[in-house]
């Protein structure tokens, strides 16, 4: 799930940080630049692992800030295809399930990748919400939010940043915020799905 990535970055240190010790100031700047951000192909940055070298400290003409070339390692969250992960159910709609890890919410399980055979029942409590029920051996097993759901990573995609915001004035639903990293999961297989089905 987590990998280390080595990055070299040219960091501009604004003058108001000059009274702080260099390491602290650089770590603070790295945190605000990279933490909780998605880097394409590398995944979601969780935390800075360590700083390997700091070079430079040049001040460019016309600029009050000093620029450093920093080499450091980041802990990235990047699941690989075929990995088994436990997550919680966040919402269940007619398109499938949406799971969440707490720090990462964009995990979708579309209907074709749910355990088969499966049928859905509209949930009386929430509008637009649907409960998915798996049929096996004559018994019905609903997928509810009670316990952790194990899924296999089917695909990790990084959709390109949209240039224009879509105007959906006719639709009453709010436009979903852009998700830079989307994980598609699959529940089709023995041992996958809510943990209570297999314990």
């Amino acid at each position, binding site marked *: *799930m*987590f*990998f*280390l*990535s*080595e*990055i*070299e*970055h*040219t960091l501009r240190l604004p003058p108001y940080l000059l009274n702080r010790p260099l390491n602290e100031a650089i770590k603070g700047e790295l*945190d605000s630049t990279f*933490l*909780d951000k998605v*880097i394409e*192909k*590398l995944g979601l940055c*969780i*935390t800075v*692992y360590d700083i390997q070298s700091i070079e430079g400290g040049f001040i460019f003409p016309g600029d009050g800030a000093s620029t450093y070339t920093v*080499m450091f*390692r980041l*802990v990235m*969250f990047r699941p*690989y295809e*075929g*990995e*088994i*992960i*436990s997550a919680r159910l966040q919402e269940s709609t007619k398109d499938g399930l949406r799971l969440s*890890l*707490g*720090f990462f919410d964009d995990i979708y399980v579309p209907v074709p990748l749910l355990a088969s055979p499966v049928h859905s029942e509209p949930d009386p409590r929430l509008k637009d919400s649907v409960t998915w029920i798996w049929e096996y051996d004559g018994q019905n097993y609903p997928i509810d939010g009670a*316990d952790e759901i*194990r899924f*296999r990573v089917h695909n990790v995609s990084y959709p390109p940043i949209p240039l224009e915001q879509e105007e959906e004035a006719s639709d009453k639903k709010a436009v979903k915020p852009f998700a830079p990293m989307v994980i598609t999961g699959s529940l089709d*297989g*023995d*041992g*996958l799905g809510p*943990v209570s089905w*297999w*314990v």
Partner: protein
Amino acid sequence: MKILDSKAGALTNFEVLDLLRSRGAGTDPTRVIASVSPSEFKVFDYLENSAACNQTREIIQKFVDACKKFDLAKAEILNIINTRPSSGVEVYQIIEDCDIRMEEDTIHELVETINQILPSHQLTNETADENNEIEETAEENNEMTS
């Protein structure tokens, strides 16, 4: 920004949890003081609730050594350490081409190794504690009556 090495090393969930703990992340009361950002705390919460919360370096090293005879890929060992499967069905998902590479006995042996070396996770922990309590009180009752 230049990416020098995108795969400088794989980390188990335990190692990330250890890293966050060493930065000062703890459960509830210490939240305000620690130099850990809210997003790092969310990761910490997730990891504390997963199988990684009871592991130590020695346990992981022991498990990796015990797995050498099963001829598993590094990614599969990592996945097992992270999710701690407790039955053959769950192990079957993790290992690629499981039915071709391993027979039933080997799978059973692997599940036994997992159950012995890796500490169990919360759900199974609670039932294990309850079972222990029931056994202890039964023993006490027996002692009192005899």
